[in-house]
């Protein structure tokens, strides 16, 4: 996803002279092309995220479309008040890119995990939140983010994510695998595991659809309403603390418009610091986000409803 971001930001900057890329001293070699070609539109702001965010505000207030780029926790909660007051309050078009979100950097420890970024940013007015699930979506959603007149948080993964969702057209929320009865609604790179779990469910004759809710805020309310009508059960799977993330947003929204929230089920990370080391897939298994755990969770609920 990182490489897809670097490629696309380079392409977009060729056409749009207002794009300025700010890095928090990460992306070694990643932006070599960009900095060579656009010498006065790339700035390494050093390890100083509060200042980088303020600088982005000043640039946006003067007509540019700045993008701040660093590791997700440092680009969100480290500089939260700058995002709130310097960017969201005056509603400036800054794109905040959090790379290595969720458990992408599992081995690096809790300092580098980002399991609360969505919840904290969605509490601020004006900001949009976009979560691409694979490299193709990164490119698509970066374009969307640049076009927006509001602040945008683009939550991406790391490198070498597979393209599993090879499609030409992207909506705000798309059906990526068709079935019935159960809906698996997910966001971000964890969709790959959801997809694998879905195939396993098929083998056990548990019919299910998979949806990609890439626009988290605002989300496509019309389509989610349709999903509520169409399915008996809706499983929301997210690589984020489950008490405060997307499940929580949709539950709150469904309650406010009188939809039956009891058909929603949450699969995400318990609100605890993760104290073990291991690669992302191992970490996902430990917190119940590997394909097998997702499969078992859905199967158990589905079995119960058949009794």
């Amino acid at each position, binding site marked *: 996803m990182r490489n897809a971001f670097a490629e696309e930001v380079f392409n977009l900057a060729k056409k749009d002279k207002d794009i*300025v890329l700010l890095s928090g001293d990460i992306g070694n070699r990643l932006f070599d092309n960009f900095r060579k070609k656009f010498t006065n539109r790339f700035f390494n702001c050093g390890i*100083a995220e509060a200042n980088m965010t303020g600088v982005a*505000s000043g*640039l946006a*207030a*003067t*007509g540019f479309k700045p993008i701040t780029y660093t590791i997700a926790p440092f680009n969100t909660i480290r500089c939260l008040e700058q995002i709130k*007051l*310097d960017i969201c309050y*005056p509603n400036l078009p800054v794109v905040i890119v959090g790379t290595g979100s969720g458990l992408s950097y599992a081995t690096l420890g809790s300092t580098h995990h980002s399991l609360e970024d969505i919840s904290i940013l969605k509490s601020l007015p004006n900001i949009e939140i976009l979560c691409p699930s694979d490299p193709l979506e990164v490119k698509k959603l970066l374009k969307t983010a640049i076009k927006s007149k509001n602040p945008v948080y683009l939550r991406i993964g790391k490198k070498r994510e597979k393209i599993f969702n090879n499609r030409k057209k992207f909506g705000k929320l798309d059906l990526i695998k068709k079935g019935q009865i159960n809906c698996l609604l997910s966001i971000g790179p964890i969709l790959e595991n959801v997809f694998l779990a879905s195939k396993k469910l098929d083998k056990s004759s548990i019919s299910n659809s998979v949806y990609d809710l890439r626009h988290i805020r605002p989300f496509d309310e019309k389509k989610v309403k349709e999903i509520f009508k169409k399915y008996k059960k809706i499983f929301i799977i997210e690589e984020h603390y489950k008490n405060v993330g997307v499940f929580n947003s949709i539950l709150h929204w469904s309650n406010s418009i009188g939809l039956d929230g009891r058909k929603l089920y949450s699969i995400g990370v318990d609100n605890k610091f993760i104290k073990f080391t291991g690669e992302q897939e191992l970490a996902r298994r430990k917190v119940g986000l590997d394909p097998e755990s997702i499969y078992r969770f859905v199967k158990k609920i589905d079995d119960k409803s058949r009794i």
Partner: protein
Amino acid sequence: MKTYNLSNKFRIQILKMSNKTGAPHVASAFSCLDIVTTLYSSILKVFPKSPKNPNRDRFILSKGHAATAQYVNLAEKGFFSKKYLESYTNTNSFLEEHPNPSIKGVEAATGSLGHGLPIGCGIALAGKIKKKSFKTIVVLGDGECNEGSVWEAALFASSKNLNNLYAIIDNNGWQGIGRNKDILDLSPLKKKWESFGWKTYVINGHNENELKKIFKLKKRVPTAIIAKTIKGKGVSFMEDDNNWHYRIPTKEEILIAQKELKIK
């Protein structure tokens, strides 16, 4: 009207505003008032009738709690009618206790300290990229220099050669509830700014000529101006008394101030 007289007229206006609405920070405003008034009278190229003119100089009062010092100047310049000053902080007034960007002539929301200089850096950087000649001036409190983001910005500005950026530090020696030196000692303040790569001047912050002189010089690097000031400047019983960070003047006290400043 000379800047000095204008500032004193503003002092009485600010006392009346504070008395009427119960809003504090009179002493903080008086401390930087001569600086802000000099900037608006003689240095800033601004366009009250088209406040967003892209060629305007940018001014950010990063010590947002001294907002009245900016509001009286904005009204004097014609950004909005002077009649709004009287309703400052009242129900439905657009003039809150701290500046916000929906006010004509205000560039950024300040009040939470340490935000103005990073934003100023971004604006100055934008000026460089666009090859525009406007300058960006940020007024900070000395207490505000406790904030780490001020020094992140100080590093950034010199690293990126922002010679179109000015930081004026209102150095009255006080912060919220005590003297700087007893809380987080800033000394040697001049050496600090110099060592961060800024051309640094120390001036009397109540002398407009000393301030004006600096803006006539050519700059290779960002400029820091440490303005030695007196908190509560201008009114004998307020000067250097930190209680006036929060105290609200009574009508009787305003009369004494009017006599002292010879302003009706």
